[in-house]
Each structure stands twice: as structure tokens, then as C-alpha cells.
């Protein structure tokens, strides 16, 4: 195995092309190093991107925010751009692993590894995020939703260079809640992110819901969204939404031993996300 | 009498070396000319085996591969000699040691392990201790899987239940637990300046280890020296032999320093577990909540080897009543072989599991009697002078009542009130 500590994106994509699919990008290494040692992956070359500054910046592009793929969870937690309405993404980042893992693990790695339990992904799905991919052939964009739901692939010669999304508008609030078996270092048993906006007439104006560990990959809960949109926001409606969510889960997780447990647990996690978001909104608007 | 240490906070003598990172654990020792060892372990729970090391022996850098043929006395074990240093004919659990490779470095050890051919002729295993107790169950060792049966007979339980106003019957199960001490097993062996086989290891029983090594190698105990390095936690999990004999054998044969460091995974495979128990309980009390009878059957799954099973299941039996006086008691506790990971010592040694059963029984008796859980305990608990189910008279301090009363006070627990039920 060869090893390269790359200094620029250009160097990375040149190396990826040179190794024709046998090169593996390493950033935090918090999953990859374990896989290499267990001989699950046997790359010919490791290409380290953990110290490329242009891959680590979190940028405010006016109505959009762009997060470099090699930004660590600690970078996200410490970014002032993710306070206020985007706090759900920060909360998800803060609940990843441990301080040691957050200092190394990256948002790009969370996506590229395709874990169903990737904590940062449900909030990014709620934001309708776009993945920006680079290769020597150039740059292209795919939506995060298509990456998960339509199985769009990241090419072997491509690197995720950034994740981009539109900032929430008006009174939209992004929220996140997770159930782990303990406080730290817990892989999510299930997680829910919501983007919610309640209009002046108390009707639900915006609702996007994404879940983690309730399917083979993180996904949007369209049926629940359809149920909620335009409805008067009250406890009864939220309770009914929980039933819709349970039904959707059942279809996807039928036969799994964890289903009964998750069906009981999901109610609280979903409500934590919804009401936690509204609590946060009060703080943001105060 | 003036006490110098008891009742005082004193500084640990080893704390300074530990906070500065200078404290040496077995894997921290390095020697000139040191080579590495690694263990080949069974991948199946119950099988006859044939081992072919010839291909692995030809690998450049492999110094020697040890199997049962190289061990003068292949048997060991803390109570019963039911472990083999290396499995000779049969493996009895996943993780059973089959061979030990010594090579110039760790990577070569791994390569050699991959090249040892083990032919497994799998046989039916038994994984449920209740199944294992049946006559027609597959046998792990010899002709019975029942390693141990401990009995308590006090008074007449039939009579006790007949006179009981309420009876509660339940079965409780606890699971296997690993100690997960933070420092995986490691060791270094060499021949010291006086010609003694020396093993640096982290162990709870250096004297037992020395005895077991001497016995396995058929040499005098004074030719074996154990150095106990710093121990990164143990909790009962370092009471059995893991790598001690492998290391001693290698240094003895090869006359060179040999080092072994287990991974976390191998550590899980190598050492004992807490016994999972199945506890069938029947408890009776009179109208006032006075306990009259207890009958318990406790079955401990000791896995493929006995280790401390006799002592652990005896302790479970002795503690089966909990800290309560009961006039009529019948307890049967068993330790049973299965093809599961082997169980041995772990913090509490069998006394840890039974409270799940006896305390839940108390709560349920209280509920049936419309009594609160504190009152029923206060009526029955051991006091100075109480006689336990095994006939022990508690002559020293028994401050249980005082303890419970303080808890009640601190919790502001509404004893006797409706909300306490």
C-alpha cells in the first residue's frame, strides 16, 4: 500500500485517477482504518485529505452554505454559521461519537461511508443538500436525496469536495433528536431530523422529516410530510403523524427483530425533534 | 489501638508512575532479540480437529509452531484440569486455542496463522444449559454435562408453602458478561540470568500461574518465575490461564524472548465470562409478610470449561435467600457445561446475579399483600444473631436495617402510605 498526504484537491483527483479505483481517500480515518486492519478493504493507495484547507472551510455564500467535505464534526460544532435556524445540524454533529472522534471524523466521510446511522445525514436531507463531486473530468453535483434514495454513485475517481444547501428561511427551524444506548460513543439506534415552519395562522407551512436507522439508509419520510403539510399545528395532529410514521417504518422494517422496539421509541424521538426545534426557535427569536 | 491506615485516605504507591505514563504493563516490555507469538483459535464451537502446520512452517520468518504434541502435560485448570493448553482432538468452544505460532514479527505470525490448515469435523453442540442437563444431550467433556450440584435443605418447604398466605413463582435469567478490563492480555517470556523460565504477565494469581506452567512443562516450580507487571484491570477475568503457558513453553524451547499482545477481540475470546444464570424461584409468606418458605433452582451455564464454576454456583446457592431469614429453604444450584464461551470468576462470584431474583420476589410478595416494599424487607431482614439458610449464625455487625432506614429517610420514602405500594 502506498500513502500520500495530499496538499490540494487537484492532487487528490490526479491520484484517484492514477490509481483507477484502487486508491482510497482517507480523512478522519475513524471508520476506514478499522476496515483496513480487518482486511475489509485493501486499497493500493491511501490519499489523505485531512489537512487540505480548501476542503475544510464552512462558507456563507449568501443564501447558501457550503461545507467542505473534510470539515470535522468539531468544525461544525464550533461554526457560528450553524447556530440559530440550523442548530439541528450542529446538534447532530455534537452527538457524533466522542471528542476524539469528532476531532477527526468528517461530514464527507459520514456520507461516503453510507452508514444507515450517520448522524449528520438526516439534517442534511431536510435541507435538500447537494453533494459537489470533483474528478479530473471536472465538477458535478448530485442531490443527497438521489445519492441515498436512487442509489446515485460517487465515482471511483471522484471525491466529495463539499456539501451545499440553502439556508432555512423565515421561521423555518432545523431540529434533530437521536436515541443511542448511552450518552457518548453510541451509534444511533434511530434518529430524526425535522425542518418545521408554522405560519401565522398556526398551520404547518414547511415540513421536512428525515430519519436515520429506520431503513437501509437515511431517508426522507414523505408520507409523514404529506400528512402534516397545511394542517393546524397541535398535539393531536402530531400524535396522528406518529402513527403515519410507525406505519411507514413497519413497511420498511417488517421482520426485523428491532422493529417493535423502534416503533415504541420513535414517538419520543420524533416529538423531541419537533418540540425541541420549537423551543430552539424561541431562543433564536428572543 | 491506633490505626495507621484503616479509615484514612492514603495515596496509592503506584499513582505517580501511572499518571506519568511510566508504569509498565506487560506489553510495554521490549527485549533485545525479541520475537512474537500468536494463537490460532477455533472458529467453531464443537468439532473434532486435524491440524496441519506444514505449510505455515515453511514461511520465511516463522520460528516454530507449537501444538498439543509439544506440551509435556497438556492439561490445566484452576479447579478441574479440564482445559487443554492446545486442543488435541476436540474443540469445545469458539476461541479454543489450537496452536501457537512464534515468528520474527507480528505480520509473519498473522500470515502463518492463515496458512495453518485446520480440518474441522463438526459435531452437534449444546448451547442451552437446561438442554445440556438432559441425558441425551451432546457431551462437552466425559459422560455428563453437570459439573456441580449444590444443595441446601432447611426445615420443610412443603409445610412452609402450605402455611403461606401468598406465594410468588417466577423464573429469572441473567446474561453473560465480559469483564472488559481495559488492558488486553499481553506478556513477555524469556530465560533469566539464572536459567529460569520467566514470564512477565498481568495476572490475579502469579503463584497459581507458576504452578500451572511447571505442571504443563513437567519441570520444578523453582525453575519458573512469574513477574506480575502492572495490571490494567482484571475483575476476575485474569484468574485463569490465558497466554502464560504458551509463553513459557516457547521461551523454554526456543531460548529467546517471546512477546504476545492480544487484540481486544482475542481478549474477548480468551478469558472467562460471568456465569449466566437461570433462576427458578418460589417464595411464600404469611399474612403479615413474614417469609415462610423459599425453593430455588439455579442453573449456571459454565460454557466449555469449569473454571471457578463450583465456587460460583455454591455462592449463588448460599446467597439465594438474600439477606432474609426464612425458616424453610430448599436450594439446588447447578453448574453445567455447554459449548458457549467459558464462565468463571467475575466481581461478586455468583452473589451478583441472585438479587435480581430474590429482590423481585420480595417486591411481588409485598404487592400481593398490599404492603410496601420497605416494610416487608424490614420484617424479614438479617439482624445480629440471625441464622442463615446454611446455618451460619451472624455474630458480627449486621447493619442492614440501619442502612435501609437511612435510605428511607434520605429518599423521604412514604413507608406505609398508599403511594409506596
Amino acid at each position, binding site marked *: 500500500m502506498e500513502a500520500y498526504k495530499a496538499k490540494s484537491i487537484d492532487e487528490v483527483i490526479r491520484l484517484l485517477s492514477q490509481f483507477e479505483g484502487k486508491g482510497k481517500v482517507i480523512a478522519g480515518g475513524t471508520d476506514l482504518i478499522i476496515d483496513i486492519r480487518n482486511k475489509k478493504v485493501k486499497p493500493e493507495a491511501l490519499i489523505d485529505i485531512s489537512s487540505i484547507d480548501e476542503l475544510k472551510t464552512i462558507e456563507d455564500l449568501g443564501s447558501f452554505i457550503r461545507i467542505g467535505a473534510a470539515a470535522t464534526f468539531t468544525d461544525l460544532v464550533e461554526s457560528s454559521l450553524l447556530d440559530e435556524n440550523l442548530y439541528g445540524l450542529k446538534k447532530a454533529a455534537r452527538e457524533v461519537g466522542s*471528542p476524539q472522534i469528532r476531532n*477527526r471524523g468528517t461530514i464527507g466521510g459520514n456520507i461516503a461511508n453510507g452508514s444507515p446511522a450517520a448522524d449528520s445525514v438526516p439534517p442534511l436531507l431536510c435541507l435538500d443538500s447537494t453533494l459537489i463531486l470533483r474528478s479530473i473530468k471536472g465538477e458535478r453535483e448530485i442531490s443527497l436525496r438521489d445519492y441515498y434514495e436512487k442509489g446515485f454513485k460517487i465515482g471511483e475517481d471522484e471525491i466529495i469536495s463539499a456539501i451545499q444547501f440553502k439556508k432555512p428561511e423565515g421561521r423555518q427551524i432545523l431540529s434533530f433528536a437521536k436515541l443511542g444506548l448511552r450518552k*457518548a460513543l453510541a451509534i444511533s439506534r434511530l434518529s430524526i431530523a425535522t425542518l418545521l415552519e408554522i405560519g401565522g395562522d398556526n398551520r404547518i407551512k414547511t415540513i421536512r422529516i428525515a430519519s436515520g436507522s429506520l431503513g437501509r439508509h437515511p431517508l426522507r419520510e414523505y408520507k409523514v410530510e404529506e400528512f402534516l403539510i397545511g394542517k393546524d399545528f397541535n398535539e393531536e395532529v402530531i400524535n396522528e403523524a406518529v402513527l403515519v410514521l410507525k406505519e411507514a417504518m413497519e413497511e420498511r422494517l417488517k421482520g426485523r427483530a428491532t422493529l417493535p422496539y423502534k416503533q415504541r421509541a420513535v414517538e419520543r424521538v420524533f416529538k423531541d425533534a419537533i418540540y425541541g426545534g420549537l423551543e430552539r426557535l424561541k431562543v433564536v427569536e428572543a | 489501638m491506633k490505626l495507621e491506615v484503616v479509615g484514612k485516605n492514603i*495515596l496509592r504507591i503506584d499513582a505517580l508512575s501511572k499518571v506519568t505514563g511510566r*508504569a509498565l504493563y506487560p506489553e510495554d516490555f521490549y527485549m533485545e532479540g525479541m520475537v512474537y507469538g500468536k494463537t490460532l483459535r477455533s472458529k467453531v464451537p464443537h468439532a473434532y480437529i486435524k491440524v496441519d502446520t506444514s505449510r505455515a512452517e515453511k514461511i520465511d520468518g516463522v520460528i516454530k509452531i507449537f501444538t498439543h504434541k509439544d506440551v509435556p502435560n497438556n492439561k490445566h485448570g484452576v479447579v478441574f484440569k479440564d482445559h487443554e493448553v492446545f486442543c488435541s482432538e476436540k474443540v469445545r468452544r469458539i476461541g479454543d486455542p489450537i496452536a501457537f505460532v512464534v515468528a520474527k514479527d507480528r505480520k509473519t505470525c498473522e500470515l502463518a496463522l492463515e496458512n495453518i490448515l485446520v480440518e474441522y469435523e463438526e459435531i452437534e453442540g449444546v448451547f442451552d444449559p437446561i438442554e445440556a442437563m438432559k441425558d441425551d444431550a451432546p457431551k462437552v467433556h466425559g459422560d455428563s454435562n453437570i459439573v456441580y450440584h449444590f444443595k441446601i435443605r432447611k426445615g420443610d418447604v412443603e409445610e412452609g408453602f402450605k402455611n403461606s398466605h401468598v406465594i410468588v413463582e417466577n423464573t429469572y435469567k441473567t446474561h453473560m458478561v465480559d469483564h472488559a478490563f481495559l488492558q488486553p492480555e499481553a506478556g513477555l517470556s524469556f530465560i533469566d540470568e539464572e536459567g529460569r523460565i520467566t514470564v512477565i504477565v498481568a495476572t490475579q494469581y502469579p503463584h497459581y500461574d507458576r504452578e500451572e506452567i511447571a505442571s504443563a512443562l513437567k519441570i520444578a516450580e523453582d525453575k519458573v518465575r512469574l513477574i506480575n507487571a502492572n495490571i490494567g484491570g482484571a475483575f476476575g477475568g485474569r484468574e485463569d490461564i490465558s497466554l502464560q503457558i504458551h509463553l513459557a513453553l516457547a521461551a523454554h524451547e526456543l531460548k529467546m524472548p517471546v512477546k504476545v499482545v492480544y487484540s481486544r477481540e482475542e481478549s474477548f475470546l480468551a478469558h472467562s465470562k460471568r456465569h449466566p444464570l437461570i433462576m427458578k424461584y418460589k417464595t411464600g409468606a404469611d399474612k403479615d409478610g413474614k417469609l415462610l418458605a423459599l425453593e430455588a433452582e439455579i442453573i449456571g451455564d459454565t460454557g466449555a470449561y469449569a473454571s471457578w464454576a463450583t465456587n460460583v454456583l455454591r455462592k449463588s446457592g448460599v446467597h439465594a435467600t438474600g439477606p432474609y431469614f426464612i425458616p424453610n429453604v430448599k436450594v439446588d444450584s447447578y453448574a453445567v457445561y455447554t459449548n458457549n464461551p467459558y464462565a468463571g470468576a467475575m466481581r461478586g462470584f455468583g452473589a451478583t446475579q441472585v438479587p435480581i431474583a430474590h429482590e423481585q420476589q420480595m417486591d411481588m410478595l409485598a404487592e400481593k399483600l398490599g404492603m410496601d416494599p420497605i416494610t416487608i424487607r424490614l420484617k424479614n431482614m438479617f439482624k445480629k444473631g440471625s441464622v442463615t439458610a446454611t446455618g451460619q449464625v451472624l455474630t458480627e455487625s449486621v447493619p442492614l436495617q440501619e442502612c435501609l432506614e437511612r435510605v428511607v429517610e434520605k429518599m423521604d420514602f412514604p413507608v406505609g402510605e398508599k403511594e409506596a405500594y
Partner: protein
Amino acid sequence: MKKISLNVNGKDHILEVEEDMRLIDLLREKLGLTGVKEGCSEGECGACTVIMDGEVVNSCLVMAFQAEGSSILTIEGLGDEENIHPIQQAFIDVGAVQCGYCTPGMILAAKALLDKNPNPTEEEIREAISGNLCRCTGYNKIVQAIDRAKEVLR
């Protein structure tokens, strides 16, 4: 083999490392810094914690070549018998050391915390050591020790 340069405990090193070598192997085997402990090899236990460019990392989850150009602090660089660091002293005084295997990682996690936040709350202390397991169940003493060290350092 790959040549890398890095600074460990204030000293510059240029070393030849294997491509598949991890930072923990470099520190233990090449530099003899055995205060770096290996407990799980997958980032769960934190025994191998070191401070890399000011932040705690699991040295079992960093490849040696990735550490090129970085500054590493291990327990050996924090303080020794003659020049003990207040966090180390607090661990001794409070009785926060039992088997000692988690101790170097715990102390470095505390160091990284107090460098950034000299006056942490108990919750912040617990959060800072949440990636470090102690199996002797000594967390309360460890939290107390860090709390005491904070007072001494202020």
C-alpha cells in the same frame, strides 16, 4: 517506507514509517512512548488518546503518515516525577487512579479541555472525558480530580 517529520513532546523527529503504520505504533514502537495505551483499536476506549495540534485524537485511528507536520503531546511530555503537571498531581491526590490504564488518556483529555476552557462545569468535564472509558468505575474521582486541577491552574 515513507519519511515523515513531526514534533513529539517538543522534540522534532524525522522518521521512516511503514505506510500501514498507525500513529500509536509510531509513538510506542519507534519512540518508546509506552504511556500511550492500546485498549480496543477502534476508537471506543480512548486509552490511546494523545493531543495532536491542540486537539485530542485516538492515536489508533490516525495513520502515522497523516501526522506529517503535526505536533503531538503524549503523557510523557506533560510532566514527569521532577516536574509534575497539576492535572497529574490532582489525579494522585484525589485518588483518581486505579488500574491506571485509562489514566494517560484521561489526563490528556482533561488537558485539552482545560486549555480551551479553564473553568468548565461538571457537565463539560464529563463531556470532555466521554471518549475515555474507565473500567474500574472511577469516574467520579476522575471528575473531581479535573475539577481540582482547574482550581490549581486558574
